[in-house]
């Protein structure tokens, strides 16, 4: 191997491993944040929530109970102590406000900040690794499985960091840094290939466009996936809270002793950090927003891929394995978008479709690339 290539490419490898290590640290910081943020938030919000509760009570009294969506205000108006559901709704509303707040006005979670700073640092090394690999190869760095994974994971982090300017999604930090650490680590261990020239079919502008847009779509689907998972957890917590309250109030009437029936702290309702997150409904809207942008990019990927296939292989569509999976994913997300508009499917069921969709994306990227036979033999693995 000529020296010049060797040194630049090995610098790239070194940068990759540094980025992996930093992402792993970011993951730890974000995990600590999740473990601690509920306590912090509870302290910070206690005052606010108290206010909100008071407001809920007065508003309930003015408008007349029942108009509001939460059953909580009914009991509020009746003069009973504010219920756990009312408190939950107040927490969720506050959390949504925090998620949509400008960066400067966000809650100060120290560990989340550390996590984000580390992610940015890791990202810089990651970009460095990608660029040096590109220079070492003398072309765009996404033409085999190793390079595609390198660039793809970089774009996932880039999209995550960009989105942070608009929404405070740092609670997804563990997911994103965890995902990227695993993917990038696996890539560096199993997929590494030395620089070789591009094979002829890959010499096309469509390589640049097709692969780049596919990575962006993947990043957006990843965010939607994580939000859908959190949505499911949150929906479960909401359900349990409502159930607990109903059980509590029926007990209270039965016993005719309202003082004794302060609803017991609900049983296990999921991780505590859920207390700092918006409602399942709000999480679903966010997930949907990312998914539809991802879907548009994916549609474009499909079209661009067909144009390229028509130039390279003489047909725009041939149900090659990779084409099949791209199509399956497209149809799954079309299903997800439909599900959100179908009565009985909005909410939990559509969230499952988003989860299935992203699982298919990951399957397509890993298993299909490695084990399925087809024309897209660009993994560079033997």
């Amino acid at each position, binding site marked *: *191997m000529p020296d010049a290539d060797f040194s630049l490419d090995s610098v790239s490898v070194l940068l990759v491993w540094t980025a992996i290590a930093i992402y792993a640290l970011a993951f730890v910081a974000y995990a600590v944040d999740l473990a601690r943020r509920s306590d912090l938030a509870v302290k910070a919000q206690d005052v606010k929530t108290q206010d909100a509760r008071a407001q809920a009570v007065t508003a309930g009294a003015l408008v007349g109970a029942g108009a509001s969506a939460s059953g909580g205000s009914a009991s509020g108006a009746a003069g009973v102590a504010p219920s756990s559901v009312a408190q939950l709704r107040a927490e969720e509303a506050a959390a949504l406000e925090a998620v949509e707040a400008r960066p400067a006005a966000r809650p100060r979670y120290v560990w989340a900040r550390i996590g984000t700073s580390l992610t940015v640092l890791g990202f810089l090394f990651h970009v460095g690794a990608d660029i040096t690999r590109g220079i070492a190869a003398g072309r765009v760095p996404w033409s085999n499985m190793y390079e595609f994974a390198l660039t793809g994971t970089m774009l996932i982090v880039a999209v995550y960091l960009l989105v942070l300017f608009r929404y405070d999604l740092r609670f997804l930090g563990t997911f994103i840094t965890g995902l990227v650490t695993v993917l990038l680590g696996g890539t560096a261990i199993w997929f590494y290939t030395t620089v070789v020239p591009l094979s002829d079919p890959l010499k096309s502008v469509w390589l640049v466009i097709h692969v780049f847009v596919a990575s962006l779509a993947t990043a957006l689907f990843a965010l939607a996936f994580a939000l859908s998972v959190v949505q499911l957890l949150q929906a479960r917590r909401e359900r349990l809270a409502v159930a607990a309250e109903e059980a509590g109030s029926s007990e209270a009437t039965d016993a005719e002793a309202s003082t004794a029936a302060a609803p017991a702290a609900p049983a296990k309702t999921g991780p505590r950090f859920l207390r700092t997150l918006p409602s399942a409904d709000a999480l679903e809207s966010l997930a949907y927003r990312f998914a539809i942008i991802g879907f548009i990019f994916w549609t474009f990927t499909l079209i661009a891929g067909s144009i390229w296939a028509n130039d390279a292989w003489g047909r725009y569509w041939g149900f090659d394995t990779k084409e*099949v999976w791209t199509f399956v994913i497209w149809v799954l997300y079309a299903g997800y978008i439909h599900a959100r508009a179908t009565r009985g499917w909005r909410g939990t069921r559509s969230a499952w479709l988003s989860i299935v969709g992203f699982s298919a994306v990951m399957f397509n990227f890993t298993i299909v690339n490695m084990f399925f036979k087809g024309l897209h033999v660009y993994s560079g693995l033997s």
Partner: protein
Amino acid sequence: MSRSRSDAPVIAADASDPLRPSDHADGDGGDGRGITQPQLGFVGWLRWGWRQLTSMRTALVLLLLLAIAAIPGSIVPQRSADPNGVIDFESKNPGLYPVYNALQLFDVYSSVWFSAIYILLFISLIGCVIPRTKHHFKAMRARPPRTPMRLSRLDDYATAERAVPEGRDAEAEASRVIDLAQAQLRKSGYRVERYDTPATGKRPAIASVSAERGYARETGNLVFHAALVGVLISVGVGGGLTYTGQTVIAEGDSFVNSLGLGYTSFNPGRFVDTEHLPPYSLGLDSFEVSYVPVGQAGQGMAGDFAANLTTREPGHDPEQKTVRVNHPLDMAGDRIYLMGNGYAPTITVRDPAGDVVFREDVEFLPQDANMTSQGVIKIADGLSEDGAPTQLGLIGFFYPTAATLHTGALTSAYPALANPVLTLWVYAGDLGINDGTARNVYALDPSEMTQLAGGTSGTDALQLEPGQTVPLPDGMGTITFEDNTANGGAEVVKRYVSLSIHRDVGAPWVLGFAILALAGLVTALFVPRRRMWVKATASGSSVQLEYAGLARGEDPAIAVAVAELKRTHEASLDRPGTTGR
């Protein structure tokens, strides 16, 4: 709070809303299942079935089924994409093969079950889109609906109060203020309608403007769904008018675009007139390829393939053209693709008298990345063994850069012609081609033949270098591996290319509809559809202003839009010289 959705219960759907299947999440839905049972009779059942088929739930289930049904085709080899894989599967799983075959698992994408799913889906799609299109056509001309009585019940709501200037009537002022709001809304793309009510005994005068925008959202949605139908039709109709053919040309040879002459295989669509293919011919002048030099990463990797052709068409001068990977050649409405390449050693066989009985460029199929290649030579006439006429079959192995493995066997170490060697196994007997059945030119059936050289015959295989001649076994004659440079060629061994020739009249249509679908999709997902109201109530010395917005469908920015409307409206009111009217 920007998380706003359309289902504010205050305002029921009306005629200017897009039409949705009854089980749409925003619909009113009746019995909660959205579909009422039929009362009686055949027509009732038909209608019920049709409504089932065109419901959102059915569309969703069919979509998910389509996704699942597509998967087996990526696991089981498909006749269309990987015919050899199917043959391979059959020989490895003789028990499973008939079962899979009966289930059409080797032809998933043309199978009855896969077709049923997508055909139902598209019937559902058409049945859904046509009524919606009609409705949307009307809705586009409808006026924005009446201003609701109690705007304050909407999620996105704001109020303001303005003092009536000295000497002006409160009612006139309210009207003036709404005039301004109306102009402003119209300017930002809303369709507007005034709903003013004069003062009555009890009620003060109210002026209000109702505004609606975002009809393009529904238009985009309809265009998207209709364009999907367009894609499907283009694929279907295009498929019938499409043909693909393969041909192989050695350097110095040419191909004539005619079914009988040029093609090694040809797959026409149902409506193709195979008698009248466009008359042109292609001659292969040379084939270029570069290999990564020995010692570099990716050693021996081939690239920069280029077939230099001379094209001839009636009424045109011959032209020099090049076909590369990713750069097909457009020729009389056909597209010509470079699919493969290999070596085509020129072989001459002479009988003992020295007369040529065979002379051809024999195309050898590459077996590995270093172009170890295999080919078959069949000589049906002109040779005899021990005085009796016989047929001769040879299986050739060609090594462009021959190297000896430690087992003593030959292999190719590099794909270029550094040390070209040809070895031949010789069979004599019956080639099995006399009965006229077509035989694969790349395969030899030795069941009726005796092996005279190579393999287990006990005699060494024939071994030749370019320019060399060796005797055939049993004094049948001689065989020569011609040196191509002696005939003016650039390299010692000729190369050949395999070309694929396509006509696909549907493809541009498919692309067009796909782009239309994408445009529709972007419009449908990003154009917000919303209503806005500004209401002014005259009350003595002041005017109460109310602003409200209502999203129809996903609209994360509605709250901002209402706040912005209020801000710009108040700013325009504060500006001096805005008298309205």
